């Protein structure tokens, strides 16, 4: 019952209620002369129309809508008998909507296939990296249509979310996303993640696999964070990974980032039990059968992911002193406020300048710009921040693509090149002075404008980009589009390099145009620091790097 929208319940309840009242009125109205009583037989139809306007049309409510119309017979036939027949018919008809809405699937769920077709066609028409990535739209459609048909057959919103996310991951572009709502998205990841057996498997820099985020119940078997993993259910973690639907839902724009997370979803695959082969602390290979703890591998996997990737836990755009000579500028998202977008972030830049200068007065020489898990935002904010830290002189940022207003399209020049509009350049301020150094910390999910700042600052002499992985590698302008169910967003506006080639995003080679200067090895030392000691390994590494740097 609780799944029925309240307004629909009111409409359904209105029918028997009106039936009873108008039945009684039929007896009375016949005895009085005034024709105004006839208006009462219009009331259910009028109320139903207004309520349907509020709640939206629902096909399973049709019997109730028809019932409301049946009452109108009482207006045209002011005799007792037809009015009573209309009252009973409408009341019964209206009530049939209740089992229809509760028992038949698809109540207030849009047609999932139609929804896919709508999103697919919009994306096919407007996705700007089709040529760069050589997208085979027909093949994608043939692959995913049956999956949406299956979801529609079961009216399964969670399955719909899973299939959409898998579809989005095919583009190797973190700007391609679909979400119905947070709740459905979480349910989809939980459903796709599989069972929790008490551990997550991660791949170390040397290619071996190790357990992390280990449940206390496995400690008796000698399994702990860092325990080397040989196989999962008889196959290597990398192969087991591919059996996880959550793996298929992961979107990476760069192959190197995808490889970093190889094996990450393996430990969610299996039935009531899973077989783990590992090396114990004595170096002896052991085989054990792990019982399923629960059906929520995603939560464990998410915790492990956050342990590896979360940035400094301070406020957005705050400058925090880390030691005598270094402070951290934490940028959680590349957005500041609505006013800043209008003044090209001039006010934000002034505020940041003041904060940095205040830190300099306290002896701070270097800055760590922490953009780990930064989900992107404004290019104008990127420019304003980069301008402060850039060495003096003119710096090139990116090139806007030429938009042909007549053909409503960008102009391809062939060979992966596009016609350019104009270059975006700025003058550096070098706020830290010649002695100051900058480290930019990134993760595989430092996306979009975070990719921009990574790429831009990697060209500065005073900046070093550090991370376990590269930043995401997705840098085009993105636009969202609302579907009947959910919201689809994808790259829609071209950003170019000076020569007209696509800025940052990977093509068919699955390699983005972005690199880190120092790829920190994710090894046993890092694993222990992160999972056992609770340290911010990348930050510690950066501080050490800055301290040892020759100037």
């Amino acid at each position, binding site marked *: 019952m609780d799944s029925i929208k309240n307004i629909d319940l009111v409409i359904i309840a209105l029918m028997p209620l009106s039936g009873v009242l108008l039945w009684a009125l039929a007896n009375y109205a016949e005895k009085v*002369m*005034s*024709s105004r009583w*006839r*208006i009462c037989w*219009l009331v259910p139809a009028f109320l139903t*129309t*207004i309520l*349907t*306007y*509020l*709640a*939206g*049309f629902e096909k399973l409510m049709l019997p109730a809508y028809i019932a409301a*119309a049946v009452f*109108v017979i009482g*207006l*045209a036939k*002011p005799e007792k008998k037809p009015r009573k027949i209309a009252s009973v018919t409408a009341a019964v008809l209206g009530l049939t909507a209740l089992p229809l809405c509760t028992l038949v699937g698809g109540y207030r769920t849009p047609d999932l296939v139609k929804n896919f077709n709508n999103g697919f066609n*919009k994306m096919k028409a*407007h996705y700007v990296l089709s040529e760069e990535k050589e997208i085979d739209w027909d093949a994608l459609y043939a692959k995913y249509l049956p999956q949406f048909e299956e979801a529609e057959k079961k009216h399964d919103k969670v399955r719909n979310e899973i299939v959409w996310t898998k579809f989005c991951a095919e583009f190797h572009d973190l700007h391609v996303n679909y979400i119905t709502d947070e709740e459905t998205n979480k349910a989809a990841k939980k459903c796709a993640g599989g069972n929790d057996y008490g551990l997550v498997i991660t791949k170390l820099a040397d290619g071996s696999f190790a357990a992390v985020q280990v449940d206390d119940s496995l400690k008796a078997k000698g399994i702990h964070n860092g325990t080397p993993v040989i196989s999962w259910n008889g196959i290597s973690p990398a192969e087991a990974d591919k059996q996880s639907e959550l793996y298929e839902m992961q979107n990476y724009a760069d192959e190197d980032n995808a490889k970093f997370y190889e094996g990450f979803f393996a430990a969610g695959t299996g039935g009531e039990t899973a077989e783990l082969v590992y090396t114990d602390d004595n170096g002896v290979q052991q085989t054990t059968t792990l019982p399923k703890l629960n059906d929520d591998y995603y939560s464990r996997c998410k915790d492990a992911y956050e342990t590896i990737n979360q940035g400094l836990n301070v406020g957005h755009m705050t400058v925090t002193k880390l030691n005598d000579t270094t402070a951290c500028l934490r940028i959680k998202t590349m957005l500041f406020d609505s006013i800043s977008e209008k003044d090209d972030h001039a006010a934000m830049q002034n505020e940041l300048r003041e904060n940095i200068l205040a830190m300099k007065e306290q002896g701070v020489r270097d800055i760590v710009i922490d953009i780990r898990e930064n989900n992107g935002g404004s*290019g*104008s904010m990127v*420019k304003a921040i980069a301008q402060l830290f850039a060495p003096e002189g003119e710096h090139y*940022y*990116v090139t*806007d*693509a030429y*938009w042909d*207003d*007549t053909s*409503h399209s*960008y102009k391809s020049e062939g060979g992966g090149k596009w016609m350019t*509009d*104009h270059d*975006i350049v700025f003058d550096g301020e070098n706020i830290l002075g010649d002695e100051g150094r900058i480290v930019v910390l990134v993760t595989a999910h430092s996306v979009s404008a975070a990719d921009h700042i990574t790429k831009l600052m990697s060209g500065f002499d005073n900046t070093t980009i550090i991370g376990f992985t590269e930043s995401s590698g997705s840098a085009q*302008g993105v*636009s969202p*589009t609302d579907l*009947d169910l959910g919201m689809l967003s994808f790259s*829609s*506006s*071209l*950003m170019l390099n000076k020569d007209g080639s696509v800025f940052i995003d990977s093509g068919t080679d699955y390699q983005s145009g972005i690199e880190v200067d120092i790829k920190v090895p994710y090894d046993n030392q890092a694993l222990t620091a992160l999972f056992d000691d609770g340290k911010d390994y990348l930050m510690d590494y950066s501080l050490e790097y800055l301290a040892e740097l020759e100037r």
Partner: protein
Amino acid sequence: MKDLIMAQIYQILRTRVYFWVFIACLALAALFGVSEYLNGADDLDDGMLLTASDFFTRCGMIATLFLGFSGFFVSFFTGDDFKDKTANYELMSGRLRKQSFFARVTVTVVFNILLGSLMMVFPLTLYALLTGWGNSIPVSAAVTRILLMAFPFFRQVCFYILLTYIIKRPGYAFLACYGYMCILTLLPAQADPTGTVLAFTSIQNLLHFDYWATFGLERDAQVIYDPNIDTALAVRIIISSLAAGAAYLWAAYSYFHKDDIE
């Protein structure tokens, strides 16, 4: 019935207040465009002119204005003759109720649909003359949608006719029509992709353009409208409007047919 229709037309043409309200409708429709222009309409860059095609992509307010004004015309065209007993005298002089009803309905429906179409066309023509048509949408897209708007206009007018025949006092009927329209605009309604629930939602769907925007870091956003209208939506709007309009007229006539006209 022809002479009743002619009498109605004569009465409308001779009533000065109708003329001034009609002029006010057209003036407000044009002024709405001016306010869009002066307010710096969305998506227009500095110095850009609000062309007729830009204007059409954001002229939902004109349809709302029409829904308000048509309430006035419907309630007075069909209800004014109850007040001075003209309707009673018609029946006493041997006219059928059917003739009396459909003569007024015909004149009212035709006039109001023409008014609605004119309220859409007039400011468009004005802006086309002042700033050109532009390239946001082709003329054919605007013409198609304006023609289709006749159907929800018909539906809404028929609903107002029903209200007027129930209330029978033009002033109160106008208040009811206007109140109904105001309540609808204030209620937090769900989007109606079917376009069939009310004339109001059909109009919203007809005046909605799917659009797409591209931008650069230092290049203004370009909005690209999809001028096509879904055929299935158009068919749904036509059928639902005709069916609902006919149902309203049937209910209005059923009520009037056995009404004591007091």
